[in-house]
């Protein structure tokens, strides 16, 4: 079945070649980093995690969002999502792969990565994150592939797959909860030390992931004969709207707690992100862009009549929301946690050129996997339509 990924239009080949080129640049940059050390990045003693870990954190959310299709379809028998549930699962495969690659790229000693398995340490959340991420990858490869295979053969999915599908539902929640725990349990990092970290992660995931999925469905509709259908898109839009609202609500709860309590440590990072601290303000324009795009997208989703039918506008709105959430979690959340440092120092972080190229390279690997998997799935769906 996988050989179908090798067939396609010249546009498909062009797209894959472009991604291949970007992957190549990433690989060259990584070779440079591997030989020289992480000193080639913009990270520092004070900001010891940068773009790699923040991309990993963001993409865990995109991966977890598959559950927004799997849960209604398999638990509530919501048939409308039947056609696209495999697209959600394949998006999860690509996202988790990117997560694992970003962690690997961030390690100072990548050749020792197996130490996490050789010396399992149950008190480390990172150990559990490795367990849940790999488990989720396995579950989605298995469930997605088996479902697609049965679709090809026009038979119902085998019974033995059901427990794996049901297991994948709490598992999706676990990958994001455990990733939130990486941050939420650290003493001395006020910005992360909040019980609402995991709910915030889930809300932003269930907004950002499905928003991307809507865009992907609209692209697929343009480039193939497969159409997810108006109702599925409309339901996904509803999920995106309410998850995005919840996310904003959670952020406002953080702002209230920090500023009403008036505790300096709790206010500092928010001040740094949205107003600047001690003259350092490089993330301020980013965070306001994120706020404006996020709030604008929610307002559009709630007020524009017939938005769900206007495909161009819907894609634009979902794109704005996705960028907003990417800035919030892919930049602000992780980098903000390090400012100010435990010694009250404000150190700013600028990703270096090789670091950005490696990041783009890993994203390209993700899109390469995603495109190949979607090519397989769509070709089967097209066959059934003829």
């Amino acid at each position, binding site marked *: 079945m996988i050989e179908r990924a090798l067939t396609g239009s010249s546009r498909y080949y062009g797209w894959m070649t472009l991604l291949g080129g970007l992957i190549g640049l990433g690989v060259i940059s990584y070779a440079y980093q591997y030989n020289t050390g992480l000193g080639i990045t913009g990270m520092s003693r004070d900001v010891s995690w940068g773009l790699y870990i923040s991309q990993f954190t963001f993409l865990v959310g995109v991966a977890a969002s598959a559950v927004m299709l799997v849960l209604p379809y398999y638990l509530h028998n919501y048939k409308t999502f039947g056609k696209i549930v495999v697209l959600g699962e394949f998006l999860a495969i690509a996202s988790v792969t990117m997560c694992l690659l970003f962690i690997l790229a961030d390690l100072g000693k990548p050749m020792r990565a197996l130490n996490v398995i050789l010396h399992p340490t*149950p008190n480390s959340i990172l150990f559990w994150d490795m367990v849940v991420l790999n488990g989720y990858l396995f579950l989605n490869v298995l469930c997605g592939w088996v479902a697609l295979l049965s679709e090809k053969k026009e038979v119902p999915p085998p019974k033995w797959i059901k427990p794996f599908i049901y297991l994948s539902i709490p598992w999706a929640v676990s990958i994001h909860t455990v990733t939130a725990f990486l941050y939420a349990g650290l003493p001395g990092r006020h910005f992360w030390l909040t019980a609402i970290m995991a709910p915030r992660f889930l809300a932003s995931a269930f907004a950002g992931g499905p928003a991307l999925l809507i865009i992907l469905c609209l692209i697929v509709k343009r480039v193939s004969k497969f159409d997810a259908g108006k109702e599925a898109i409309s339901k996904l839009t509803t999920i995106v709207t309410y998850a995005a609202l919840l996310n904003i609500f959670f952020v406002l709860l953080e702002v209230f707690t920090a500023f009403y309590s008036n505790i300096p440590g709790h206010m500092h990072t928010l001040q740094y992100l949205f107003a600047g601290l001690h003259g350092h303000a490089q993330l301020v324009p980013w965070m306001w862009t994120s706020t404006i795009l996020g709030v604008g997208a929610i307002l559009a989703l709630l007020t524009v009549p017939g938005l769900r039918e206007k495909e161009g506008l819907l894609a634009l709105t979902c794109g704005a929301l996705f960028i907003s959430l990417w800035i919030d979690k892919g930049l602000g959340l992780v980098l903000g946690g390090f400012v100010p440092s435990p010694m009250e120092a404000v150190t700013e972080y600028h990703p270096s050129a090789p670091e950005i190229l490696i990041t783009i390279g890993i994203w390209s690997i993700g899109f390469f996997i995603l495109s190949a998997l979607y090519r397989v799935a769509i070709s089967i769906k097209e066959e059934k339509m003829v």
Partner: protein
Amino acid sequence: MAIDRRDFLKVAGLTTVIGLTGGGLELLRPGDLDASAPGHEPAAAPGAKQWGMLVDMSRKENWQACIEACHNLHNVPSIDDKKEEIKWIWQAPFQEVFPGSESAYMSDVMKARQFMVLCNHCAEPACVRVCPTKATFKRPEDGIVMMDMHRCIGCRFCMAGCPYGARSFNWREPRLDALTLKGGRKINLEYPTRERGVVEKCTFCAERVDEGKQPACVEATRNGGLVFGDLNDPHSEIRQLLRVKSTIRRKPEVGTNPSIFYVV
């Protein structure tokens, strides 16, 4: 159908309850439940030591000599770039060492004073809790928080976890060479060489302590500015001093229970 929705929900619900009560506790509390009590005594095994240090900032000490003794002994590279510097023991102003305790009315002497800072060798070290490979661990026999530079994968979780900024990462090649050696510094060939891409920090000179010696920084003192000893021994010099001097610790509110005490 081998498992239907209802069964699944039952199992999922049950698993959650078990997870929250049984397994969850182990994750939240790696170690003894009573270890969070103030002081070191409850957590210690019978006969175990807990090394600690008293930093007496009222003494006219040659602090620079302490830093050099440590960094020379362990071949700690001196890197001018603040972002990549590696420090085991260093100096920082009051507001950085005790954030939140400073005030506008503080004496100018205090504001100007540089405090000695190093790893706190906490009784409840956050770095040990977060490390995924046990590359950083607490020695059960004497409470020293160790760093295995050959086990470390360089994930830097411990740097995010440490509330005191006590850990450094080798962003570049850390081995001393002509470029990093300054002012007649020589390489100590006795100390094992280190690699790039791992985290390092003060280890209380565990290799010297094992031979019955004092840490290098303490040995370099002239005026009793640093006192090293067993906090679990009521007759040790450090305990005698703690009994008569008024001391403070860094960020006691985060519950890591530091073993470094300051006379300000």
